[in-house]
Structure formats: C-alpha cells, structure tokens
C-alpha cells in the first residue's frame, strides 16, 4: 500500500523562525512535490523534485527552499517564517513516466505562524 508521511500534522512557529517540513515516501517514486492549500485558492505548487538533488520551482516558490538528498525524502524549508505562510502544506509523490500521472498525497501539515 502506497504511503506518504509528513513529519508533523500541526505546527506552530514564530515569525522569523526557520521551519523544516519533512516528507517521506516508501514507493520509490522519482517525483516529489510540495503544495500549499488555502481557502478559495486551491492547491498551489511551491516546488517539486524529479530526482535526487534535482528541483524545479513551482508557481509560488518565494520564501521557500527545498532539499532532496535521498530519493525517499523531500524537505520544504521556510527560511524566515512569516504570517502569510500560515497554511496547510501537502506533500505528494508520483512515478516518473506513469501514464496516469497520479500523485499520492500525505496527510498534510497545518502550519501556523504567529
């Protein structure tokens, strides 16, 4: 059974803190993604990675960076957290070249920046 796990379900951080969100998948997928979900805005892609140490910017990369040192792990980093980064963060993975392009999602991390 496919599984994507995220390090925390809920997180509260202060403005200016450096925040790490971790995502691990056990499906040997090449592609991994970070999204944020906000009411009325849907799912917006922050960054994604299609191989170890390879990354591409998504639609809203400002204020974020990512790290992928191992195939199964993809980290999202908020260099200096701000209140407008309060959101639900979702990690996903997919198999490269799969015709269906299906992505598997983790349960999400609800981040609050105060």
């Amino acid at each position, binding site marked *: 059974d496919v599984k*994507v796990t995220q390090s925390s*379900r809920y997180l509260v951080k202060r403005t200016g803190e450096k925040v790490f969100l971790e995502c691990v998948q056990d499906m040997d997928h*090449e*592609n991994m*993604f970070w*999204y944020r979900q906000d009411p*009325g*805005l*849907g*799912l*917006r*892609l922050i960054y*994604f990675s*299609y191989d170890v140490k*390879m990354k*591409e910017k*998504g639609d809203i990369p400002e204020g974020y960076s990512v790290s992928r040192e191992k195939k199964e792990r993809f980290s999202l980093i908020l260099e200096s957290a701000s209140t407008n980064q309060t959101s639900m963060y*979702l990690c*996903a993975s*997919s198999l*490269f070249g799969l*015709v*269906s*392009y*299906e*992505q*598997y*999602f*983790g*349960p*999400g991390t*609800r981040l609050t920046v105060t």
Partner: protein
Amino acid sequence: DQQVKQNSPSLSVQEGRISILNCDYTNSMFDYFLWYKKYPAEGPTFLISISSIKDKNEDGRFTVFLNKSAKHLSLHIVPSQPGDSAVYFCAASTPTQGGSEKLVFGKGTKLTVNP
C-alpha cells in the same frame, strides 16, 4: 493566469440524486485530467482520470466526461451519498522543463450531500 478553473465553489445535492461538478481549462496542450477528493484534515485522494483521447471514463458511481472542443470536463456522481461530501479538485497534467510532469489544480468545489 488560471489554467484550470472550477467556477462553482460549492454544490449542494440531495442523497440519491446526481452530483455534477464542472471544470474548464484553457491550455489545449493538456492531455490528461484527474479528479481528486479531499476530506478536511486529510490529503487529497485520487478519484478518477481521463486521457484526452477519450471522452468518457467510468468507475462505479463516478463518471468523468471530456469535451475537448469546449475545453470542459465534468464529474458525475450517481447516486450521491453523504460520504461523498468533500472538496473535489480537478487537475490537468503538463510537462515540466526537466522532462517530468506536474499537475495544475483548480480551486476546488465543495460538495455537500444532504441525507
């Protein structure tokens, strides 16, 4: 520039009736479309998909229709059940600069099925 549009933020139907969720897209290069369902405090789960070479795909109570000329797709749920109450996201697949693929999501439609 929103490439995938779900113009109805919410939809309410009675149990047993049909739910129709709509999605429009602007990029004619999109060739694969997916629907995801999301419950509160959970990640989205894949529901059904359709390739652009088809105009219909069916899986149990769920059917997706694609009208390429109109750049429109719809998800039909028949019969609707209270457990179907969730946010539904339409997504389209598009290639990336690195030769991989990513999904472009709509903003979602919140479906409420009333008992």
